């Protein structure tokens, strides 16, 4: 019975317009984000730069945080993440003066004008340094080089400033900004980034081809991009499917069948899950083929199943929870409320993840981010949290699906009938 229903549901999904719209959205996502993917090459000695990495050096932490605070103070706009996602804070005069005092004590530089001068000197020096490195005359544009403004301002702490006092001052600044700023304890450490050396870059490259076997890194990058849409679009399919019987006035006809509610809901749920996974697997074939070809020419032992593992382990829990929210809230309310709820959750998760793009800081985000094929070490360090995250959402999805079965069963027995229209009318 389950098999027959499952096949029938898959056919229904394949015939629905919304499913093909979802497939189009996924293809668009893939083509725009990963359409021109380049496979990483072995770093060469003497390259202009090898990227950035986090530093534990207290001096670097202090200089970076003070540079950032000075920059934002001059810009009169501060970036914070108070409840996990981006918020731009602009201070009033009184608060602005307090930040000025903190900078004064921490750097020994007084007044906005002096800080402005310091910033100008910094960027001029950066520009000259880069021009000298590229062997060009000052004022000539350096082809393929990052503009000097890309290098963040670094400000040295005042003489005699201890790290403990620095921490107190940064905590004060964070309080003034309402918390979650770049000067909160976690963020000031994350922001202390230093350029990678050739050796660092080689280590990362070897991790990619040996530990990740090339495909692992790209499967993570693929998951990072796909999960953005997969955190939302399945809910549209789930809500449409759940409302279809009602719209077609088929509810009563299905309710009286002998088939158990668990079989009906499970067949619907699994068919939607499978039908969404099919285009995801199909799209993964493109980067997989690219990686396998590269591995063959470079003599790398690639893992051909890496994409499948990441799709099932990383992306599937997100799809499952979006589907579960969809079917649960639609059965519960007979409305499209799930679109709003999942949309809000998606919005918070997406913006909450902007500070964690480099990977390793997966937290409890619905859509864990790892926007690089590198950083295997970060992935390893954050793996326990990532696994807990995925297990939690899978369990939650199963629980919501089970609750949907109960609600559906009660509806069939005529014991539960709730819709917003009925509530409105019962008040009359």
């Amino acid at each position: 019975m389950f098999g027959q229903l499952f096949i029938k549901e898959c056919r229904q999904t394949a015939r629905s317009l919304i499913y093909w719209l979802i497939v189009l959205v996924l293809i668009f996502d893939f083509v725009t984000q990963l359409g021109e993917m380049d496979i990483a090459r072995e770093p060469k000695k003497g390259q202009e730069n090898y990227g950035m990495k986090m530093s534990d050096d207290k001096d670097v932490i202090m200089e970076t945080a003070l540079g950032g605070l000075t920059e934002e103070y001059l810009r009169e706009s501060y970036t914070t993440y108070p409840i996990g996602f981006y918020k731009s804070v602009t201070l009033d005069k009184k608060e602005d003066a307090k930040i000025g005092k903190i900078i004064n004590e921490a750097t020994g530089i007084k007044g906005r004008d002096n800080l402005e001068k310091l910033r100008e000197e910094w960027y001029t020096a950066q520009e000259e340094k880069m021009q000298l490195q590229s062997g060009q005359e000052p004022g000539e544009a350096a082809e393929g080089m990052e503009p000097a403004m890309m290098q963040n301002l670094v400000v040295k702490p005042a003489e005699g400033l201890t790290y403990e006092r620095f921490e107190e001052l940064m905590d004060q600044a964070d309080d003034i900004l309402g918390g979650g700023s770049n000067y909160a304890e976690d963020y000031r450490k994350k922001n202390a980034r230093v350029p990678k050396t050739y050796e660092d870059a080689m280590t990362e490259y070897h991790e990619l081809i040996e530990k990740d076997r090339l495909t692992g890194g790209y499967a993570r990058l693929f998951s990072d991009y796909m999960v953005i849409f997969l955190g939302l679009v399945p809910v549209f399919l789930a809500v449409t499917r759940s409302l279809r019987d009602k719209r077609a006035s088929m509810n009563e006809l299905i309710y009286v069948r002998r088939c158990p509610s668990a079989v009906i809901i499970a067949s619907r749920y699994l068919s939607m899950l499978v039908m969404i996974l099919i285009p995801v697997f199909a799209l993964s074939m493109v980067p997989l083929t690219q990686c396998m070809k590269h591995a063959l020419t470079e003599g790398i032992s690639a893992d051909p199943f890496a994409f499948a593992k990441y799709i099932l382990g990383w992306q599937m829990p997100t799809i499952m929870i979006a589907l579960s929210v969809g079917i649960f809230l639609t059965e519960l309310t007979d409305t499209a409320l799930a679109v709003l709820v999942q949309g809000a959750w998606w919005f918070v998760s997406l913006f909450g993840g902007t500070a964690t793009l480099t990977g390793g800081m997966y937290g409890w985000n619905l859509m864990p981010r790892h926007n690089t094929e590198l950083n295997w070490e970060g992935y390893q360090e954050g793996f326990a949290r990532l696994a807990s995250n995925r297990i939690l959402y899978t369990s939650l999805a199963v629980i919501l699906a089970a609750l949907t079965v109960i609600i559906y069963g009660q509806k069939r027995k005529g014991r539960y009938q709730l819709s917003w229209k009925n509530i409105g009318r019962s008040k009359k």
Partner: protein
Amino acid sequence: MEKYWQIEKVNLKYHVPLHVLVCILILGISPLLLGVSNLPAEDTAKVLERYVALTGIILITPIFLPEQDKNIRELVNSKYTKSSAVYLVRLAGNLCLLAALLGIYIGMLKHNNCQFPVIKYYLGTFAEMLFLGGLGIIFYRLSDNLIIGYMAPIIYYIIAAGGGEKYMGVLYPFSMSTGSYTEKIWLFAAAACLIGDGVFLKIPRPRLKTGCP
């Protein structure tokens, strides 16, 4: 006139309250999520374009919601009053509510010492709301499916937020925060077309079999 007011009264009583409540909730929690005080013009535009404009999808898209029930659709079609007139009355009512909510929100931003050209930003944000809602209306009308009606503007928003400037050209919805206003005029023109088509388009739908010849 009386009959149009009756249509709007029914709309306000049964179909709008939940949607308005959701919009108020979304706008009400915004200070927790975004900076809404002492903002310069660019950051104020970000709040309006990327957050407040989303309410357009919630309030404009569902103007055909009652007709999702095929029995109600048949009943509305059988009446002397044209169905497009019914939709227009509902649309006008919802737009008034949306304009009021936006006005209150912009007033709050101004009160919180945000520096921005009020009328320009009000109209620009309203144009974006109309466009997002218009997208919802046209997709809803074409597919006869509320979910697709919601999905289309949401996907449009996501693509725009994910660096869609190069794909969207003059229909890029977040242009005010980059200092350009021309896109808002295009968005308004496109919204007028989308909403006009959505309301007046006649799409044949299967009718109930009455048994009569």
